[in-house]
Structure formats: C-alpha cells, structure tokens
C-alpha cells in the first residue's frame, strides 16, 4: 500500500495543488444551477487530470482524499468529517477501474468509463446513506437513479474535456508520461 502512494515530491505536490484548486473552485464558482450532481464535473475533471499528468495508479485516490481533507479544513461543501468519504469514495472507485481498463480502451473512452464508475460510486454512497437512515428501498432507488442521471451527465461532460487538455499539455512539452495516450 505504501508503494502505491509513494509518489515523487513533485507529483505529490501537483496532486495536492489539484486537490486544493478543486476545492477552491468549488467554493469560488458556486455553480448554483439548482441541479444536484454538478460537483461531479469538477471532481471528474481534476481526478482524471491528476491521473493523466502523474500517470500512476493511486494518484486519483490521493487527490480524492486530499480534496476531502482540504474541504474539511476550509469548511467547503457541507463540511464535517463525512466530506472525506464524499470526495474519497468516487476517487477510489475510479482508481480501481483505471487498473481494470488500463490499456483496454482509448484515452477518451477510458476517461468516460472511469468517470462513470466514479459517478456510480458517488450515487451508491448516497444510496447506502439513505438506506442507513431508514429510507425505504424504493425511494432510495429512485434517488439513486436521479443522482446517477444528473451526476452522469456532468461526469460525461468533464470526462470528454480531459483528453484535449492532456493533448495540449503534451503539445507544450509539459507531460513526460508517454504511457497515457
């Protein structure tokens, strides 16, 4: 486990900066669309950028848990220790699916699939929370479906934006990881 998170200091700092920027943008922009799930847009985008730049399994999870810690410290979102799970769980799911799909699909489709897996984990977290709170299975399932639908749309939008950004970074000679294509 230690080896998975044993990044070089530069990579670790980039992950930390991405996590902080994600939280800062979330609080600065305050996209008050009245639609739940828009937080999946920034989350998916920054997690996948982290993977694209660092190019190692574990980078998404590290970014997720760091975002949770920073959000907790800056009291962004609904605050409190449970925000760690909100940021961390989708990141963990995305990292695990990245291991599964590595080399199987093109970068664009990998981003989409991995993003949707993250969204599924996010919606599943809401579902489990609702069940633990005593909600009936039917109502919890409807809420899960709604979360998946709304979060999925935002995830798709963000995942499709990642490959062009990575290509532009590569064009500027800023990416040294040639494996991510």
């Amino acid at each position: 486990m230690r080896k998975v998170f044993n990044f070089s200091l530069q990579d670790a700092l980039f992950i930390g900066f991405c996590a902080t920027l994600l939280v800062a943008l979330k609080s600065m922009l305050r996209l008050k669309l009245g639609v739940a799930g828009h937080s999946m847009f920034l989350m998916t985008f920054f997690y996948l950028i982290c993977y694209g730049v660092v190019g190692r399994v574990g980078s998404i999870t590290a970014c997720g848990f760091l975002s949770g810690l920073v959000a907790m410290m800056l009291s962004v979102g609904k605050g409190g220790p449970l925000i760690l799970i909100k940021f961390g769980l989708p990141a963990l799911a995305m990292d695990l699916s990245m291991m599964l799909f590595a080399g199987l699909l093109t970068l664009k489709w990998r981003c989409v699939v991995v993003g949707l897996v993250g969204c599924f984990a996010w919606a599943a977290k809401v579902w489990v929370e609702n069940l633990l709170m005593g909600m009936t299975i039917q109502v919890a399932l409807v809420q899960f479906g709604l979360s998946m639908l709304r979060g999925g749309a935002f995830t798709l939008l963000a995942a499709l934006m990642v490959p062009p950004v990575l290509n532009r970074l590569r064009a500027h000679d800023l990416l040294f990881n040639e494996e991510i294509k």
Partner: protein
Amino acid sequence: MKTSGGRHCRNSVNGANTVIKSGKGIGWTATGLILALVLSSAAFFIATQYLFGLIICNLGLIIHGVYRRGDFWVIGRVFLAQLVITLSLYYLMHGKDQLLEGATVVLRVLMAFIPGWWLSVTCRPEKIGEVLTWILPAKWAFVIAASLSLLPTMTREVREIYQIQCLRGARITPKALKDPRNWSELIHCVIFPLLIQLLKLSKQTAMAAQLRHFGKHKKTTHWR
C-alpha cells in the same frame, strides 16, 4: 517539515511563509473533530428510540454555533430541500401512510449535517490542519501545508486569469456558466493556463524543499 511538539515552527519554501503555533486550541479542535465524527456517524447508525438524545445533542451544537455567529440559514436550506424531495417521493410511492417515516429520514440527514456545520463554525481551519498532521505521513502533511499556504496565490491567479478572459469576451461570466455548454470555455480559458502554472509551481516547490534536504533523514526535520 512537520510540527511535532515544537512551540513555534516556520516553514519557508518557495517564498511562502507559514507560522504554525501549537498549544492552545489544538486540544479543543481535536475534541471537536472527534465529537463531530461520532455525532454525524451516530445519525446513520443509532436506533430510532435513541434519536431524541441525538436531537438534544445537536440542538446544543446549533445553539453554540449560532452563539459563535454561524449562519443558521445554511441548516434551514438543507432541511427544506431534503424535506421537499424526500417527502414528495414518499407520498408518490407509499401514499400518506409512511410520511412520518420519511420525516424521520429527513431528521437523520439533518443530524448528520449539523456536526459538520458546527465544526466549521467553531474551529479554525489551520487548527484542523494541525490536528490532521498528527495522523498523516510527513510528506503528505507537507503537501497539505504547502497547498494551503499557496492557496492565496492560486486564488489570485484564478481571479486574474478569469477577469482578463472575461474582458476578452469569453463566455465564462456567472450568467453564461449557467449553461453547461460554456463550461468547456472555462476549462480552456481559465483551467488550462492554471494547470501549466501548477505544474511549474510543483516543480519549483519540490526543488526548493529538496535543496533544503527534505525527506533525506528518517527523523522529520524542522525549519525554525
């Protein structure tokens, strides 16, 4: 570059200075963090007959939070949104019979939310950060400290790029951003230059820390 028992420690990497004072308030923050974790977890797991006790505890937190000038309306908004969505779904799927059960669920959601709100109102973020460094490895504690100390720089950078791009006519004003079709413009005009900046910044910060022998010794080093 981690604080461990020192009274006054100073981190200085890449021009960013942070003075960390330990001592007063840390115990309170650690207790607050544990209390918030226990109370918000209890909202999920506690049996319904003990829910009244949890409500009393949370009422205490609300009173303390409001006394410390917390925004009570934040809780009100969460409560109303949950109440409308959950009760409408219960009414549509189960009729009037299980509305009370739905209300209990909403109450539990609120009980899970209140401790987090209270923690954010009563504890200063840097103190929470200091408590977290007790359990994190030195490298990640340094990463968090560096990210937080560079946050004002990053925020200023975001604001400047955002304002300049708005002046250039980019469709990224708050009104334009209500349309998700304009989000790609936000990514290309604001986030992309920022990512370049972050890559540069992480390289510089890492080099600055390594030149100060960061991570060379098994025992954590301090900059005093």
